[in-house]
Each structure stands twice: as C-alpha cells, then as structure tokens.
C-alpha cells in the first residue's frame, strides 16, 4: 500500500519565529493520523508543508520514501480539504469536483464517470449543478472532500475540516469521515485542536505543542499513558498533583504528596525529585470518611462541589494540602451510598495502578492548554 509519510527533522521558521521545530514523525500508509494541539502549536504549518504550500526551512518530507520537500504542490500526489473548503465560487459543484481531473489526462467519458462516482460517494448527486454558495456548510464540506478524493490521492490532508460546522453535524461527519477513510484505505492526515475529535477518529495521534511533537501514539495510549504533563493536561480531564518522587518500591515508585506517601505504578518510575502525579477523574474512588480512617492509598478531603451530569456525577474534592481533585462517579441508577453535597468529608482513593508519574517538562509549558477557536494567526505570532 502506498501513502506513507515520514517527516524527518522538519523545521519551518517565519523570520525569527520557529513555527515547527525539527519534528520527526512516521505516518504509516492507510492510517488515520491526527495532528492535535492548541492554536499556534505548528500543526497547520506542518500540514501546509506536507501539502506544499510552505517550503520547509530544513528537513525532509518523504512520501513513500521519496523526498518531496522541494516539489511544488501541483506535482504532489496529496490533496487537501481546507478549513474554509475553498470551493471555487464561480464554478458549480460538478465543475468544482472536475477541476483537478483535467491534469490526470483522462478521456471525457472517464472524467464524467469519476465526477458521478465522487458525487455519489458524498451523497450529493442531486446538487451537481448548484453553485457552492447555494449549499449548506455540511454540503460544502462534502464537495471539498469529493473534489480532493476524485483525484485518488495517496494521502488526503484535512485542515480542521469540521471546525466551521455545528456540534451535531460535526459528530455525524466524524463518523462518516472515519468510515470513508477505512473504506478507501488511503492515508488521512487530520489537523484539529479538538481532543475529542482526535480520539474518536484517529488510528494514531501526534500531540503538538510549541512546534514540537510531545507524543505520538494510539488514542488509547495518548489518553491512558501520556508521556508529558502537557499531553496529560490537553487530553481529557487530568488531575495533576505536585509530588516528590522519593524512591523505588518493588515494580513501582514511591512519591510524597504533602505529608502522605503513595505508590505509583505508571509512567516515569525512575524519576526522582520534583514530579507531577497524574490521575484521571474516573479512576479516583470516593469513600465516605465514616467507613474508617483514611488509610493506605487514601487522602482525606472535603467535597467542594458536586455536579450531576446525567451519566455521571462530577465531584470536586479539596484534599489536604489544598489541591482540588476532580473525580467522577458513574450513575448506575441507584441513589448514591452517601451524600456528596458540598462540605461532606470524604476520603479519595488513589490506586497505585492509576497513578502516573510525569517528569517536569524542561521547557516552560504553554500557560493555557485550552484549545482556541481560530488558528489563523499561528503563522505570524508565537
């Protein structure tokens, strides 16, 4: 199968600003690969270099083993779905889709057949003669997709293609896109700042921050086994506790959080000194303090807020030492065994196999990991 992309030490500088800082990534053929990160992390610039719109400052872009870093975009067998779709407003839907077929030197018959097929693929056959501006956002998105796929590229690049759509449509298109990718078997490189979207669709995710790749792994590994504080914080809800790693403990590591000692069995177990300990809300157990004194693996705290979210309760617990932990308790239909109102004294249970040791990052983290809506200024500002 073709469509494998390898990035080697890829760097892009805009004047003094380094947008992409020597990243190396393997995107295996036929995979749904996602570049995930906050605004300004360099994900769009990376995609634009693969497409050929930006010239790398240094490094190589291997497409099936061949370096295409200096190949102009119209000679690369990759196609792009733009964030704003970039449908040609002076052409109707079928002419938009047929635009690139001219360069494949097909006969007229074949050209028409391919356009028809592409229209069917995205369920837009009856809109063939509409102008782009007479379509809804979701339909425009499909036309953009058809226009790229009709050329049968080895790789399809998608730059936040669902960003402009409303939440519901987005969800259904996520599933559709993933299905389409599996059906066609071509490599999708997908750029998004939406972690949920990334988790839903990807075979593999590369989390980017400040022009670097923080971690590239499967969605499950990214979520369950983040390598860095940034990744832990960016994907899902994480509780990150300041701690001091004091020494080995069998197969795990002992950390001191406040005046208490906990065992951790995940993450950087060889770390010593100042570390962060991470635990997901769904892994935290909440126990009534009256069940007994706080013992091993436990920490006393006070419920500060409890929010009913339908499928689960989200409980904010202020623990000894002042840190706020978020825990979730699944709603199994029965009443809670004890009240979770604010002010209730509880113990939080932090099991060793859910505690993950993360080394402190060497460089300062982006102060705000919340994804922003727009990425348009990524190229010019830090």
């Amino acid at each position, binding site marked *: 199968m073709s469509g494998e992309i390898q990035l080697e030490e890829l760097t892009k500088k805009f004047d003094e600003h380094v947008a992409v800082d020597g990243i190396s990534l393997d995107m295996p053929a036929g995979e749904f690969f996602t570049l995930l990160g906050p605004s300004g992390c360099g994900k769009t610039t990376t995609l634009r270099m693969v*497409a*050929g*719109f930006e010239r790398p400052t240094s490094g190589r872009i291997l497409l099936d083993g061949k370096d295409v870093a200096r190949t*102009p*975009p*119209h*000679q690369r067998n*990759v*196609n*792009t779905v*733009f964030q*704003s779709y*970039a*449908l*040609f*407003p*002076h052409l109707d839907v079928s002419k938009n889709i047929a*635009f*690139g077929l*001219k*360069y*494949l030197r097909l006969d007229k018959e074949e050209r028409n057949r391919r356009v028809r097929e592409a229209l069917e693929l995205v369920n837009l056959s009856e809109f063939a003669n509409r*102008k782009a*501006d*007479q379509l809804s956002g979701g339909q425009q998105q499909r036309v953009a997709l058809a*226009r*790229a796929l009709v*050329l049968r590229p080895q790789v399809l690049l998608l730059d936040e293609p669902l960003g402009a759509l409303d939440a519901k449509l987005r969800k259904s298109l996520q599933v559709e896109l993933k299905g389409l990718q599996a059906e066609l078997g071509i490599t999708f490189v997908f750029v998004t700042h939406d972690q949920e979207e990334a988790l839903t669709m990807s075979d593999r995710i590369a989390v980017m921050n400040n022009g670097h790749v923080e971690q590239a792994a499967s969605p499950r590994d990214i979520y369950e086994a983040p390598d860095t504080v940034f990744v832990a914080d960016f994907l899902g809800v994480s509780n990150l506790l300041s701690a001091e790693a004091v020494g080995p403990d069998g197969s795990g590591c002992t950390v001191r959080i406040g005046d208490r000692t906990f065992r951790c069995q995940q993450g950087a177990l060889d770390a010593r000194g100042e570390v962060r300990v991470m635990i997901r809300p769904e892994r935290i157990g909440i126990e009534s303090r009256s069940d007994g004194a706080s013992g091993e693996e436990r920490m006393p705290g006070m419920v500060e807020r409890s929010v009913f979210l339908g499928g689960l309760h989200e409980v904010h617990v202020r623990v000894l030492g002042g840190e706020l932990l978020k825990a979730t308790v699944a709603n199994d239909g029965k009443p809670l065994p004890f009240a979770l109102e604010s002010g209730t004294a509880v113990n939080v249970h932090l099991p060793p196999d859910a505690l993950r040791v993360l080394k402190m990052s060497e460089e300062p983290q982006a102060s705000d990991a919340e994804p922003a809506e727009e990425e348009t200024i990524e190229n010019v500002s830090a």
Partner: protein
Amino acid sequence: MDRLRNPWGKPRFLAVITIFYIFWSVVPVLLAVMFAFNNGRSRTTWQGFSFRWFTGPTGSVLHDPALQGALKHTLLLAGFCVLIATPIGVALALGLQRWRGRGSGTVNTVMLLPLVTPEIVMGVALLLLFLRVFPGIGLGTEAQVIGQVTFTLSYVVVIVRGRLVSIGPEFEEAAADLGAPPRDRMFRVLLPLLAPAIVAAAAVTFATSIDDFVVTQYLSSDASTTTVSMLLYSSARGAPTPALNAIATVGLVITLLTLTLAFLVYRRFASGQDAAAVATMEV
C-alpha cells in the same frame, strides 16, 4: 414630546441633513439637464420642451461639427484609456500583491500618489514631460491617452487589489493542490474571480476619462483634440446655447450608464463571494 419619541427610531436630524444634501447636489444637475431640453436659446429662462439641441438642424449635438468632434474625441480617448489602463493595472495589482520584499511598501505608496496629487500639478508635469523629455510624442491624442492612463491606472490598481485581498490566497492554493500549474491558477481561478473587479475598474476608468478636464486640456494640441469637457469650459463664456447642456447631458448619461452597468455586472458575478467588495466600487 421626548417621551413620545420612539427610542428605536432613526435620529431625525440625520434624515434632514441627508435630504438637504441630496437636494443641494442633485438640483443643479437636474436644472442643467432640464435646460438641455429648452425650446429657446436661453440657458436660464424656460421656453418650452424640445429636442432641438439634441437633434435639431442647426447647432445641435447631432449636427454641429464642433460638438460632434468633441463627443467622438472624448469617446475615443476613453476607449483607448480603458484598453490600456485596465490590463496594465490588473498586472500591476497582481504583481504588487505578491511582492513581499524590500521596497514593496514604497511602490505601494507611489502607486497611490496619483490619487492624491492635485490634477493641475499632474497636468503641468505631464505637459513639461511631453514638451521637453519626449518631444517626439508631442501634444495631441497620444499624449492625452498616456496622460489619462497615468492616473486612471491607480484606480484600476486600487480596485483590483481590494478584490485580491478579499479573495485571499486560498483559492489559488486549492487550485495548486488539485494539480493546476501557475498558469492555470491564473486563468482558471484568479481571473474569473477578479472579473467583476476588472469590469468595475474598466468602468471607473471610462467614466474618469470622460470627465477629465485638466490633464486632457494641458495635453491637447488643436481643435481636433478637444473633448466635451474642454468644449464646455471654453464656450461657457462665449456664446453659450442649450446645446452645451445637451452635450453635457449626453456625457452624464454615458457616465451613469457605464457605472450602472459595471455595478450590475459586479453584483451579478460577485454575489455570494463578497458583499463588502461591492462597496469598493460604489465609492
């Protein structure tokens, strides 16, 4: 009174000012047009309605050789001006838009200079140019065309660049991505998208050329290079007849038709692309 006023209503004094302004600017024009249809030699006393100054046997626009010549020469200059200024202006706009290097800022400013330079300065400068630097060209039709192109070019560049900015680089990138080489990006994507702006620019050039007086006057040579505006100016103090109003009316109608046509074309083809860009040409 204050309590009765609709708080969501538009401020009344603005409406009054607007209406007053419209009267102030339109009424003189309407009066001038009205006397073009006067059935008498007076340009101030109404003597009944007639077409004699348009089509009458003597002294009318249709039969007076001087008026005829001026009208033809005006249209000739405007035609040449459009044919030359539009393509050069579009090319310049494209070039300036892409040029990101050193000096591009300066060139941008220089491009806009003709818009703010007093026309009389421009006229004198061009006169000296053709008398001293390029005596080979000399004064006359060629000089008038070159002179008009010199400053209408700026209009073309400004209008086309405005459109280029609103189009953005994305459509060209999309075309490149789909396999179009640079030439096709220009002819299959960019020029069709620019077409409304080009038509608008051509119309503005045409109208500006017809209206121009100062530069055209400075660079004229003899009676054969007299335009409508020059004729109006020179005979206003001589023996004015309503024929002057008539020819001015013809000029006015041509200008209005051109601009209306351009506006319609622009709106028709730019619809849905960018409503804001339409405003650039209404200026």
